[in-house]
């Protein structure tokens, strides 16, 4: 087994890309691009990968070139962040609509205005309906592991969907922590050769890509897209099982932390989950029955499994590092509430905390305060404020 190293999230993800050794990487090389592409460019110029590396003039072009390469039959990747993902917008839908298994790491950073470069998953939350699979990561280890698994998930014949793997900007992308990297040959064998069934450069079997598709067939093709998403869950679990065999590390649709016997729980995503787990441990030592559910697969949303895991809890708080401006709370909360509508048993009391926008710190005291609120709601059955902005100057 490989040894533990000190590494930043960006370095770990770039290493995963080097080991995946994609046929094509197309990326916009300057801000808001991350160090991932800079490190990968080093691998290209040092001859450590066989990748055709295409530097383009915008993220719109980066995604377009990646779509072209993938349609041609290549294993194609790109990477971006924040405004870069926003500029890819139009082409994100094309990638999923054409069922191209592109894999892209995305570093979660806030969207302008005001100008801010710091951590906040508003970028990928906004892309939640684009038809991409979304997998979120707590730290560098998970970002590395998820990216390697994403190749297998995206390219699975039952799935064929583009997949983004995210991690928190700066906190994980630039912060150094520990991770265990797999050996090159192990990753190479795990991801295997990409053998697309239909592709443009297969001259023996010519196909049309990007055809006009009016009211006669468009609906059926979009319905197929939804159908493909129903297959994702099983594939994610199967790939996780195989990944555990090579890594010893366990992944699921989500991460249930001390949740089984918990009376109250926090649902959270990305790096704040680590801080919250530490709070759970401290409160458990005081005998409080608190737990946590960390979202991993956000699109498609494993709503049934999540509802089962949270059913019977007395109160649940969903922590969102993004706002939806629906005035019904953040994107995670809205999905969670919808999922819980059909959960078995009595209605679970749910509240939402929007925190940390633009990289604002969330600390242990604040999270402990959320658990205090939950225990009060559990006791009284009363919710005084469904949506709270946590740690903001009012």
């Amino acid at each position, binding site marked *: 087994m490989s040894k533990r190293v000190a590494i930043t999230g960006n370095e770990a993800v770039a290493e995963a890309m080097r080991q995946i050794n994609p046929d094509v990487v197309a990326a916009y090389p300057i801000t808001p691009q991350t160090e991932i592409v800079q490190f990968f460019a080093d691998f290209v110029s040092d001859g450590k990968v066989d990748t055709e590396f295409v530097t383009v003039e915008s993220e719109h072009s980066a995604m377009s070139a990646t779509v072209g390469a993938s349609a041609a039959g290549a294993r194609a990747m790109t990477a971006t962040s924040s405004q870069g993902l926003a500029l890819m917008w139009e082409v994100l839908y094309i990638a999923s609509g054409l069922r191209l298994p592109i894999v892209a790491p995305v570093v979660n950073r806030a969207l302008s205005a005001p100008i801010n470069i710091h951590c906040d998953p508003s970028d990928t939350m906004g892309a939640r309906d684009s038809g991409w699979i979304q997998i979120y990561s707590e*730290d560098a280890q998970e970002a590395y592991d998820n990216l390697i698994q994403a190749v297998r998930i995206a390219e699975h014949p039952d799935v064929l969907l583009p997949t983004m793997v995210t991690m928190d900007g700066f906190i994980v992308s630039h912060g150094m922590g520990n991770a265990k990297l797999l050996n090159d040959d192990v990753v190479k064998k795990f991801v295997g050769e990409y053998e697309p069934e239909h592709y443009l450069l297969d001259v023996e079997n010519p196909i049309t890509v990007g055809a006009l598709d009016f009211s006669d067939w468009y609906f059926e093709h979009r319905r197929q897209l939804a159908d493909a998403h129903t297959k994702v869950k099983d594939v994610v679990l199967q790939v996780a099982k195989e990944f555990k065999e090579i890594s010893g590390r366990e992944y699921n649709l989500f991460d249930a932390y001390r949740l089984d016997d918990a009376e109250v729980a926090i649902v959270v995503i990305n790096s704040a989950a680590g801080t919250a787990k530490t709070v759970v*441990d401290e409160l458990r030592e005081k005998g409080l029955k608190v737990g946590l559910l960390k979202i991993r697969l956000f699109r498609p949303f494993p709503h049934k499994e999540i509802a089962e895991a949270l059913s019977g809890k007395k109160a649940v708080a969903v922590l969102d590092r993004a706002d939806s401006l629906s005035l019904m709370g953040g994107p995670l909360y809205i999905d969670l509430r919808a999922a819980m509508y059909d959960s078995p048993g009595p209605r679970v009391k749910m509240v939402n905390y929007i925190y940390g926008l633009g990289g604002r710190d*969330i*600390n242990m005291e604040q999270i402990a305060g959320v658990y205090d609120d939950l225990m009060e709601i559990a006791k009284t059955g009363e919710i005084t404020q469904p949506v709270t902005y946590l740690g903001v100057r009012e």
Partner: protein
Amino acid sequence: MAELLEIRWHGRGGQGAKTAAILLGEAVSASGKYIQAFPEYGPERMGAPVLAFNRISDEPIRLHCQVANPAIVVVLDSTLIGKADVTAGVPEDGLYIINTNLSPGEMRKQLGLTGGKVYTLDATEISMETIGRPIPNTPMMGALIRTSGLLTIDEFVANTRDRLEAKFRPDIVEKNIQAIERAYQEVQGEE
């Protein structure tokens, strides 16, 4: 939670606070412990006050919030004293290592400290005499290794030499190692 050591580095943009935190993190990680190393993510301007942090533990570290109560504070630039709040959140028995030509007793008075431990070192002079440029981060790492007992100086020098060799010419590496070793010897504690 297992014993967690937190360190805060105060410097000015360009003095290498982040680099010091990363080099320390890499060396401590190589010794088998778990680490984090990260800067405060603010505007990065030459000369502006900056912070960097380390967390060190025998167990995996899951915290992803800022460091609020560091047991060790390293100040790379004494002109920050009185401007940056270097004692903020530090426990009563905290350890301070400050780049200054003042004695630990004089620095203790300036900081208004009653408890804890204060060490001083003229890291700027050492870096001028060894490296030839005022880069205090390298010698301050030597002082930290001596006063914290985190690693032996031999372990630290061996690991840091590897890291520096990947980036710098052999003569530059040697000068940096000299600065670390001199600082290790010359750091002053209180009587």
